[in-house]
């Protein structure tokens, strides 16, 4: 039990980062009504962009984060109209097709990444990766690496920014209206196409930016995307679909599960544990932890 405080601290710090991905992910779902299978691949692309920028310029990866956000915002903004086109098609079943489309994107991105980056895994060095804070007075020693603390600050900042964007701006009002009722929102003057593009851009940007952070804390590899797609899905389903307020709690739980498995069990069983938990929760409460999902 000596390690428990450490495991919990790690879990909170890691879960904090997942919040950012999961909020953006469920926001996209709310607006486009399609799950983006490529979420893990956006994270992976962001991580690799950070890795190479760091290698070429020698600057700290944290400095690149705004640049990566901006670059991937543009990418997402340009990709979304294609998804929108698929979703508003008249042939076949547009909803299924949208799902299949992002699945295809994910496969393509993974293939691209494996071709370009190969199979090796790496981590991004940062000025924060060395130091750590140690707390001795909690019964057992808890060590918090600086980089993880910075990650938590980052997560809180992003979450606060998204909260502000959604609740206090006209744009956010439009996004929420779209999530509630697409046609009615359109009648009220919300441009669903452009809003969708912005939201998707923001989501891709945040995912890529968070990828850099994950690359600093954990590791990067061309196949890392799978895991994060499952994590994003886990958080969103656990929170209850479309219930944003549940996302932080579900993300923290995921962080805990992951850190507990890393410390006490075999870390390669994490995915399995995540799935078993998901399975049990869905059996008991299909609408998520708080029974507030759709």
């Amino acid at each position, binding site marked *: 039990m000596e390690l428990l405080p450490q495991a919990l601290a790690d879990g909170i710090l890691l879960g904090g980062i997942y919040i950012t991905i999961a909020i953006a992910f469920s926001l996209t779902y709310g607006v486009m009504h399609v799950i983006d299978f490529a979420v893990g691949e956006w994270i992976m692309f962001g991580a690799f962009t950070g890795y190479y920028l760091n290698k070429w310029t020698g600057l700290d990866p944290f400095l690149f984060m705004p640049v990566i956000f901006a670059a991937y915002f543009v990418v997402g903004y340009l990709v979304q109209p294609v998804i929108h086109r698929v979703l508003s098609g008249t042939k076949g079943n547009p909803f299924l097709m949208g799902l299949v489309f992002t699945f295809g994107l994910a496969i393509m991105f993974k*293939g691209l990444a494996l071709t370009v980056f190969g199979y090796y895994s790496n981590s991004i060095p940062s000025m924060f990766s060395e130091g750590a804070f140690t707390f001795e007075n909690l019964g057992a020693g808890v060590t918090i690496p600086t980089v993880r603390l910075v990650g938590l600050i980052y997560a809180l900042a992003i979450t606060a920014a998204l909260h502000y964007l959604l609740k206090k701006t006209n744009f956010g009002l439009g996004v929420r209206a779209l999530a509630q009722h697409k046609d009615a929102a359109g009648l009220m003057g919300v441009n669903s196409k452009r809003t969708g593009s912005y939201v998707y851009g923001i989501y891709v940007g945040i995912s890529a930016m968070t990828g850099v952070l994950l690359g600093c804390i954990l590791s990067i590899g061309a196949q890392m995307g799978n895991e994060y797609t499952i994590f994003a899905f886990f958080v969103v389903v656990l929170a209850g679909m479309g219930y944003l307020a549940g996302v932080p709690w579900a993300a923290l739980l995921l962080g805990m599960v992951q850190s507990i498995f890393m410390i006490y069990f075999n870390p390669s069983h994490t995915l399995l544990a995540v799935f078993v938990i998901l399975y049990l929760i869905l059996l008991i409460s299909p609408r998520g932890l708080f029974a507030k999902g759709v």
Partner: protein
Amino acid sequence: MKALNNRLGLMALIVALLFALPLLVNDTFILRVATEAIMWVGLAIAFDVIAGYTGYLNFGHGAFFGIGAYTIALLMMKANLPFALALPAGGVAAGIAALIAGIPTLRLKGAYFAIATWALSRAIQQLALNVEWTGGPDGMRLDAYLHPEFFYYLMLVTVGATFLLLWYLLERAPFGLKLKAIREDEEGAKALGLNPTKLKMQAFILSALPTGVLGGIYAYWITFIDPSSTLGDMVSDQAVVMVVFGGMGTLFGPAIGALLIFAFKTVFWAYLSDYQLLYLIILGALIAVSVIFIPNGLWGTLMSRKKAETARPEPVLKAGVAQEEAN
């Protein structure tokens, strides 16, 4: 009637050719390629039961294939069961897995079912990699049974029987209409007195059973299975490409998609084996492109064009007849 006779004749010819193939060619390579092509046809049509007909995408179809393969390998190597007894067990195991996986996931909306099944398949792959009794990443070896003709006929009969069964259930019996009703409007289907949860479960099991059997045949045929070859995402990814490219919600579409994609894969592997990752990119791109340009798939697009062509001349013909009568 004549068209029907023509079609029946064509079918009979194809079936006869398929059965005579091992007698006609003496090349084991060709036989091997044909065996695997037939297997992919089976996997694609089984995938289409839940994806195309019911509208629930199962991105973890490969999991059932792997479960079948591992069940057979374990039963034959650890329990020393004969193949004939182990094979049905492979299908049953896949069916049970579908039942267990389906109980919570089939309550989810389409998108969540898709990603849940995908997560399940990743989890099962991890399980196979990490437990002792599957041999972990080293996989399992089976005793070789070197009769390519036997496997060819077994695959042919299994896939043929699956095709006929599915064709009857989905195209001739009310079951297919019920599934389509769920795909088009689940609430509406419920209002008409259908039980979507039960029907979805039946479709899911119907999709998993043949997949498990095919996995079992594959394991005994290839004699070596490991988590990446049978449980990896390649099986699921290819099934998705085949069905989407060929045409969802039909039986001929996926079959044709499977044949074309597998032919492409074989050629690609033969000449460009250094660029295996490129294949992954092409698969992904093919999915995306067919979704944008032929959302009904190759078969669906061809059929609707044919329908449009035959629909147009009819009034002209009738007018001509009427004129002749008037004269």
